[in-house]
């Protein structure tokens, strides 16, 4: 019985020139396990997202999408949410909670199930997936595979009939990917859930699937059983055949007839029958790898991460020569990445000799870690100033035309190429690659292999650690297995993989005793005298639909007269301040309680000081030319409410209380008033029923403020909290600013220990955010770097310090009187000034990034609030 039907679906993104999907018609029967395949950028993700109304991309759509005969748009949100499950690519952008049990419950909570039912579903789902023992663990401590399984379990808790998965295993290692696919198969067979999965690991998936859809350039190029699709691919000589299982490619290569073998087992039967009519010829010998000079030599290397921790590398010996490509294979936790980091010089081994002849460069597992700038060109020019070389590198990695793009707008393959280009611009002699094929499709892998082979020819030594046996077998000069912290002797891939039975390539498994020493498909075909069809040059990645980012803070040059004015003003201010200080003497600052009346001369000097300061500000202030692009403004009503509440009601209460009550009572009163100050904001936030996007963005800003503490460990007492809170207020409005501020302080107290100061800190920080929002809303505070820095510094001293100093007087000092208050302000002033300076510095450095990124997200993803 058919459950999903798409008829003539065409879809075009608003900014794109050509449709992403063209006239796609397909049907799925209930209980199908369907695979959607095709090269990157062929529209797989778009198709899957169109089937999930909550996250359907915006754009122009025609054609019909029917689920059980009902148009998908006509389903109620609850139905669509529960009946269609969606799992996206990487687990770390899908996990919502810090605890496993909470993560599992999320979907069921959203459906609004009663408590009894919630418990039951969590219990049965955890039991079904065998994750009951993890329930108390933190999601951050799970491995990638476990996280993705948790995401799957979290989707299954809503009991979907149709499960959509968008390349769910692309970020997992092969072992975890197989486990995940096995779970999918079990769900499909055991529960009858219809599965539609996009994948490029077809070797494992295709044998499981009952239907295959092939998308090319947004068109459905083939559909049917795996056998049908493979036949079709063979007939059209599609380059995509390279992604198919080895057994099927062998069948195509020898122009086989009969049933297409998809698994190794079927492939072996086919090969056995094929051998009866076609005797194999001896394999052409592969030239021995040229051994150049020694590039890396490690002897007896041992490394551990902590004094009392076990060795990760133990007595490891390794040599690699120039012009050689060495692949190290191994399971998770065998020390592969550690070895690379030791070789790269990031980690220092405790024992052993390590000699590295030349410069090393490490390509991390996630190549985007190497990209730090906002333009592709800047990425490359930051490591090499020679423009001609940068240009050459852009051409070599087919990145020309993308120079002005934002790196996060690039596709996965482009990011990989850009990272490689950046590495090669540093002119390394030894290239260290950590899982270079992760997340790449067959065509991209081939392109990567070609560029790496060229590096080898240029005399570079490549050491790659990888799980990808096929890639290593096809490309490496030597391979070795890393196990238990030690490397066995490297051998040529042909020897290495043909000796191994379990951990080896599909071609080797297929041929092991039938045709010896074949480890890749080309070997196997060569054994029958057939040349492997040359893969075509990889087509360039399809263009993405991204707007170019506007330069947020274009610098307007200050005219000379302004500079001179500022200089004069600054000098005047310093002189008048010195004179005034000399005139007044230290008495003013030491005994505030009994300040003598100021004389006329002193008044004049202080006046002159103020005027000079004003002059500096006026001269340095800039026009609105470099204002931030418009961000959404919250309604006036909300701004007025926050302003009146924060600036009138609360201070009045605090002031009145201070005169009437003693310490402990006053502490109680102020706590009560603070609660009254905090509650309305939180209540209004609840009442607004904030969108997922707003919550996620606010959470990200709060988390950044906390995580930022760790980032600037080299600057004690400098935290980016206030800067981020102010920017949140400016960008998202007063209420959001207040929330980010108070939630950040609440979080930091939850994590680092609470005290009676918690609510005060929450309030003070929230107030800063709210003020920034209110002032920005009333256009008093222009979103310009200079203005923001001044505001931030003032906020740190006057608002945050102004609240927290009396609070510490109240908490530590016991009583509140003018002298105690003054002495606490005075002793707190140095810290406040450091805080102010740090905040100004952070605002200067971060304002363009945060405001720019928020407005960028707004243009690419729609409103954030």
């Amino acid at each position, binding site marked *: 019985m058919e459950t999903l039907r798409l008829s003539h679906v065409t879809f075009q993104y608003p900014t794109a020139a050509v449709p992403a999907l063209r006239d796609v018609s397909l049907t799925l029967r209930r209980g199908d396990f369907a695979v959607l395949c095709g090269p990157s950028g062929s529209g797989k993700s778009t198709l899957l997202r169109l089937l*999930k109304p*909550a996250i359907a991309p915006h754009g122009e759509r025609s054609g019909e999408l029917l689920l059980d005969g009902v148009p998908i748009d006509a389903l109620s*949100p609850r139905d669509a*949410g529960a009946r269609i499950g*969606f799992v*996206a690519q990487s687990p770390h952008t*899908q996990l919502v*909670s*810090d*605890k496993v*049990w909470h993560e599992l419950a*999320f*979907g069921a*909570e*959203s*459906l*609004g199930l*009663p408590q009894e039912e*919630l418990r039951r579903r969590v219990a049965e789902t955890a039991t079904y997936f065998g994750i009951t023992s993890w329930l108390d663990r933190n*999601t951050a401590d799970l491995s990638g595979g476990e996280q993705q399984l948790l995401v799957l379990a*979290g989707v299954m808790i809503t009991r979907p009939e149709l499960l959509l998965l968008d390349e769910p295993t692309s970020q997992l290692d092969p072992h975890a990917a197989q486990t995940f696919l096995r779970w999918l198969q079990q769900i499909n067979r055991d529960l009858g859930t219809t599965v539609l999965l996009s994948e490029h690991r077809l070797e494992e998936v295709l044998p499981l699937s009952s239907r295959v859809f092939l998308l090319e350039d947004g068109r459905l190029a083939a559909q049917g059983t795996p056998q049908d699709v493979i036949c079709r691919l063979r007939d059209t000589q599609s380059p995509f055949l390279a992604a198919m299982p080895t057994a099927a490619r062998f069948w195509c290569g020898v122009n086989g007839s009969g049933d297409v073998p998809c698994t190794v087992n079927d492939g072996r039967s086919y090969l056995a029958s094929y051998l009866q009519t076609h005797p194999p010829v001896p394999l052409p010998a592969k030239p021995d790898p040229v051994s150049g000079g020694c590039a890396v030599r490690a002897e007896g290397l041992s490394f551990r991460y902590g004094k009392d921790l076990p060795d990760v590398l133990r007595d490891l010996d390794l040599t690699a020569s120039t012009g050689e490509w060495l692949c190290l294979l191994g399971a998770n936790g065998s020390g592969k990445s550690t070895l690379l*980091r030791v070789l*790269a010089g990031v980690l220092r081994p405790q024992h052993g000799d390590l000699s590295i002849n030349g410069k090393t*460069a490490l390509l*991390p597992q*996630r190549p*985007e*870690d*190497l990209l*730090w700038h906002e333009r592709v060109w800047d990425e490359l020019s930051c*490591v090499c100033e020679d423009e001609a070389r940068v240009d050459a590198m852009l051409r070599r990695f087919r990145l020309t035309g993308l120079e002005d793009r934002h790196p996060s707008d690039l596709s996965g393959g482009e990011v990989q190429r850009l990272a490689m280009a950046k*590495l090669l611009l540093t002119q390394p002699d030894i290239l260290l690659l950590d899982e270079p094929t992760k997340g790449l499709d067959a065509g991209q892998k081939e392109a990567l292999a070609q560029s790496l082979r060229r590096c080898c020819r240029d005399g570079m030594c490549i050491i790659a650690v990888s799980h990808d046996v096929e890639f290593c077998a096809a490309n490496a000069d030597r391979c070795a297995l890393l196990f238990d912290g030690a490397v066995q002797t490297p051998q040529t891939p042909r020897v290495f993989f043909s000796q191994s039975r379990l951990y080896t390539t599909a071609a080797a498994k297929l041929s092991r005793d039938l045709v010896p020493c074949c480890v890749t498909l080309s070997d196997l075909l060569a054994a029958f005298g057939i040349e492997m069809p040359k893969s075509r040059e990889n087509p360039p990645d399809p263009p993405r639909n991204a707007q170019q980012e506007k330069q947020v803070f274009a610098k307007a040059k200050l005219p000379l007269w302004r500079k001179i004015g500022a200089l004069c003003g600054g000098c005047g201010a310093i002189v008048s301040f010195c004179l005034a200080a000399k005139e007044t003497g230290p008495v003013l600052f030491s005994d505030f309680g009994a300040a003598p009346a100021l004389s006329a001369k002193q008044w004049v000097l202080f006046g002159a000081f103020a005027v000079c300061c004003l002059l500096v500000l006026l001269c340095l202030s800039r026009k609105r030319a470099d204002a931030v692009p418009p961000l959404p403004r919250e309604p006036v009503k909300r701004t007025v409410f926050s302003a009146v509440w924060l600036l009138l009601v609360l201070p009045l209460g605090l002031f009145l209380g201070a005169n009437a009550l*003693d*310490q*402990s009572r006053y502490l*109680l009163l102020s706590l009560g008033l603070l609660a009254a100050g905090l509650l309305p904001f*939180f209540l209004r*936030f609840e009442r607004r029923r*904030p969108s997922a*996007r707003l919550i996620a*963005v606010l*959470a*990200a*800003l709060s*988390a*950044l403020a906390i*995580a930022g503490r760790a980032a*600037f460990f*080299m600057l004690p007492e400098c935290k*980016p909290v206030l800067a981020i809170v102010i920017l949140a207020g400016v960008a998202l409005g007063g209420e959001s600013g207040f929330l980010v501020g108070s939630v950040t302080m609440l979080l930091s107290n*939850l994590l680092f220990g609470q*005290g*009676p100061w918690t609510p005060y800190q929450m309030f003070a920080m929230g107030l800063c955010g709210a003020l920034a929002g209110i002032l920005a809303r009333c256009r008093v505070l222009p979103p310009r770097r200079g203005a923001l820095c001044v505001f931030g510094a003032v906020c740190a001293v006057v608002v945050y310090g102004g609240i927290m100093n009396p609070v510490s007087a109240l908490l*530590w*000092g*016991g009583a509140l009187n003018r002298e105690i208050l003054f002495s606490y302000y005075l002793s707190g002033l140095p810290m406040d000034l450091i805080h102010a300076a740090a905040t100004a510095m952070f605002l200067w*450095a971060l304002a363009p*990034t945060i405001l720019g*990124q928020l407005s960028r*997200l707004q243009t690419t993803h729609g409103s954030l609030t």
Partner: protein
Amino acid sequence: MHRTDAVSRLHPGVILLFFLCVVGGTLLLSHPLFRLLSLIGALCCHALLCRDARGAFLLRTALPVCLLAAVLNPLFNHQGVHILFYFPWGNPCTGESLLYGVLASLLLFTVLVWFRCYTAVMTTDRSLFLFSRAAPALSLLLRLALRMIPAMRADFARTMEAQTCLLGPAKTKREALRRAFMAFRVQLRRALENAVQLSDAMKSRGYGLPGRTAYALFSWHRRDGLCCLFLLCCALPVLGASLSGGLSFSVYPTPHGAAVTPLLLFCAIVYFSLCISPVLWNRLEVLAWKRSGSAM
């Protein structure tokens, strides 16, 4: 981390009520006897609940600051009648101000110890549970942020490492700072980008449907009711006595307060049993365990 003390077995609402009672009582009851009792109770609970911390914070940070505050008070406060001596700058140092300082720092120290206990017992799970009832959106915000922080730290460390790999170790402090800023900017952009993707994941799992519920990790048992009752039975008489002025105490102008009456002694006993109730509950748990052990 699994906590096995009797308090952690209770419903978070009861735990919150307990801490509200003791911190409120500590702040409200200014009589030295009650402050002393609260301090003893707090230290007992600290010994029971914060086994792993071993009081390093209290000894190293809190105690010196409190002592300093006690000593400093006479410098600024000159109220009181018993003048001990005169400072060189002419202000008197009074016995009352000294006493006030000691009492105030005692109060502060006690409150700090209570908050240490609170932090130890109220894990993020429990805090979120309490929030999720009263403020579902806020609790979700906290939940997301708690989930993002470790991921961001790991991300940040990876970016810093990639910088070291590509550009070599930072030679000057200025260079290190420049790189930290660069890495933090990368982090910022990525975090906001991920937040948008995360919100898609939330929407695809049904967030935004009306009538959202919250999974309760903790449920209310008879034991929780009994403990609640016990807390209220202890707190209400003391509150009543305090409001009627039976437990008052004031330092200025001379130290004077409610006389030591049977009522005051009764309140003191009740209040003390409130403060050490975690210890009592734990004792009961141990007894229950022993009984079950002998029955087997």
